[in-house]
């Protein structure tokens, strides 16, 4: 504890007292020698990883060492990036630095992790450096499976942006949207489940249509070619599209478009089982899986996602590793930032309990996904989840209803903004 640290709250002091007690017990057992505190390493600085690291440090204090490994020097949140595409936020608003974590006493290592050596319990960085761990909290996020859409590739994403990882792709899609003419046609490809942010594509469609209409381009048309027959909050979105931007958004399930056969960046077109759909702008959200580092470490199932033990988000393949966030198969929890943060807290307290010999609290998984249908029209869906039959299942849920009063929809927008401030404060301090 240094003089530059934040003042401690009464509660933090109590928990820290507990941490000091744990350290003391270890010191006694080591016959007077003070051992180094156990090492918690968090890989990935998104919503799950950052919250896990900060929760572990805040509750574990000096009894543990916490290291966060993240390649990017700053983080652009995927959540609220649709707001940026529609011109409701700037990139700066969704870009955050990690200085707050370092100030908390978390060692932040900006390096690209190349592999996990599970036998040696260490992470190997691209620089050759290794970072040993006693417990690893793995929050690597998703990999986009470009090749799963014939004709699509990382190079093609420069012509047909996915913008499903926030950053330059977000800026690209925004500028492409701005450049469209008054009667432009847009085609959006939406992947099969599971994927990051289930309502995200439909919110994006609503906000793109809003932007086009608000800038005198109500003659533009956006066609969604979906890989699914139904989608999250479907009635709310369909009602919203018709109300705010009538006729501008068309949604076609595979039983109508006949399935996606291929995309062609050269002609800006998509061939389906029904016909060829051409567009002035085509955005392809490809199918996804857990990031390669988790798959390469043997922590994923054949479906490409990492299974977890519900009580602690621990990998059934390795009891020293917890997998959280979009890479994990968290039962009925969707892949959202809110869910990742919730899982990050569960993993952090489970690791602390494990390392320090404390009783492990029962997890309380929670999620809320807010979506904008228009800048002043928000909807939400969410639930409390619990362990059920070896999986994570809904205990009590809630969802917005069609035809709600405008004030309630406006309030949901306020909630979303409030949540953004809260989660980024929790992630970055």
């Amino acid at each position: 504890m240094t003089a530059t640290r934040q003042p401690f709250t009464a509660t933090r002091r109590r928990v820290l007292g507990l941490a000091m007690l744990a350290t003391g017990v270890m010191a006694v057992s080591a016959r007077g020698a003070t051992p180094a505190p156990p090492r918690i390493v968090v890989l990935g600085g998104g919503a799950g990883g950052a919250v896990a690291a900060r929760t572990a440090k805040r509750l574990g204090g000096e009894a543990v060492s916490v290291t966060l490994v993240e390649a990017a020097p700053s983080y652009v949140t995927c959540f609220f990036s649709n707001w940026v595409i529609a011109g409701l936020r700037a990139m700066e608003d969704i870009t955050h630095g990690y200085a707050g974590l370092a100030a908390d006493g978390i060692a932040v290592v900006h390096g690209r992790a190349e592999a996990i050596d599970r036998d040696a319990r260490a992470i190997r960085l691209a620089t050759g450096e290794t970072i040993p761990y006693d417990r690893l909290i793995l929050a690597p996020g998703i990999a986009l499976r470009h090749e799963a859409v014939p004709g699509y590739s990382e190079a093609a994403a420069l012509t047909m942006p996915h913008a499903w990882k926030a950053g330059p792709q977000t800026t690209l899609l925004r500028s492409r949207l701005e450049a469209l003419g008054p009667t432009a046609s847009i085609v959006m490809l939406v992947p099969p489940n599971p994927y990051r942010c289930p309502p995200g594509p439909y919110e994006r469609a609503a906000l793109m249509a809003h932007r086009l209409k608000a800038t005198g381009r109500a003659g533009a048309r956006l066609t969604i070619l979906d890989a699914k027959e139904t989608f999250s909050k479907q009635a709310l979105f369909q009602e919203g599209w018709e109300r705010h931007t009538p006729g501008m958004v068309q949604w076609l399930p595979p039983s109508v478009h006949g399935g996606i056969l291929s995309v062609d960046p050269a002609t800006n077109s998509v061939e389906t089982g029904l016909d060829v759909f051409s567009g002035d702008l085509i955005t392809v959200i490809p199918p996804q899986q857990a990031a390669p580092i988790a798959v390469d470490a043997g922590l994923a199932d054949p479906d490409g996602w990492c299974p977890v033990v519900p009580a602690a988000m621990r990998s059934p393949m390795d009891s020293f590793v917890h997998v959280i966030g979009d890479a994990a198969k968290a039962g009925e929890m969707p892949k959202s930032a809110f869910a990742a943060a919730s899982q990050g807290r569960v993993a952090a307290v489970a690791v602390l309990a494990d390392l320090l010999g404390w009783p492990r609290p029962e997890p309380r998984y929670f999620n809320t996904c807010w979506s904008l249908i228009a800048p002043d029209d928000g909807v939400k869906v969410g639930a409390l989840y619990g362990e059920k039959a070896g999986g994570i299942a809904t205990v009590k849920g809630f969802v917005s209803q069609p035809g709600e009063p405008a004030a309630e929809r406006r309030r949901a927008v306020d909630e979303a903004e409030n949540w953004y401030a809260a989660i980024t404060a929790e992630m970055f301090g």
Partner: protein
Amino acid sequence: MRGYRLCVSRLVRPSTAAPGHGQSRRHFLRLALLGPAAAAWPGVSLAATERFDSEVALFTAGRPVRADGLNLEAPPVAESGYSVPVTVTSAGTGPDRVVRVRLLAPDNPLVRLATVTVGDTGVPLRLSTRIRLARSQTVVALAETAGGQVLRAEAAIAVVVGGCGFDLPLEPG
């Protein structure tokens, strides 16, 4: 939509489609097919029932109605009423060949959905389209054969419309 098949004709008592029978039978169907969800459905107004019964009477023109020979496939649960897939099939050929189909949504503001006149396609009927549903209800297909018989099939469809509770399956997120 494969896997969402529901052969309703097996579940329905042979119907005479007499005015006044429609409502109670539909009510029975709801309870039988949907259990607790049915209790949340608002009652059908008398006017809506009359509109439906008069549509049926118009199509049948006094002829008896058979509850076999026609199938209506639809998802038992529709996430949204904006676009619900339905498929009408019949194995009938020769005099049993279907020449006309009418789709009805008894609890929609406009009961009649579509009328399809079928020419000499040379194959048994298989017709798919997508309909709008204002709320949960039992959709009805009526068909007329080349021999002048009237066939009827039904499919109960629970419309989630944004989740009238979590007792119905709802995709997470």
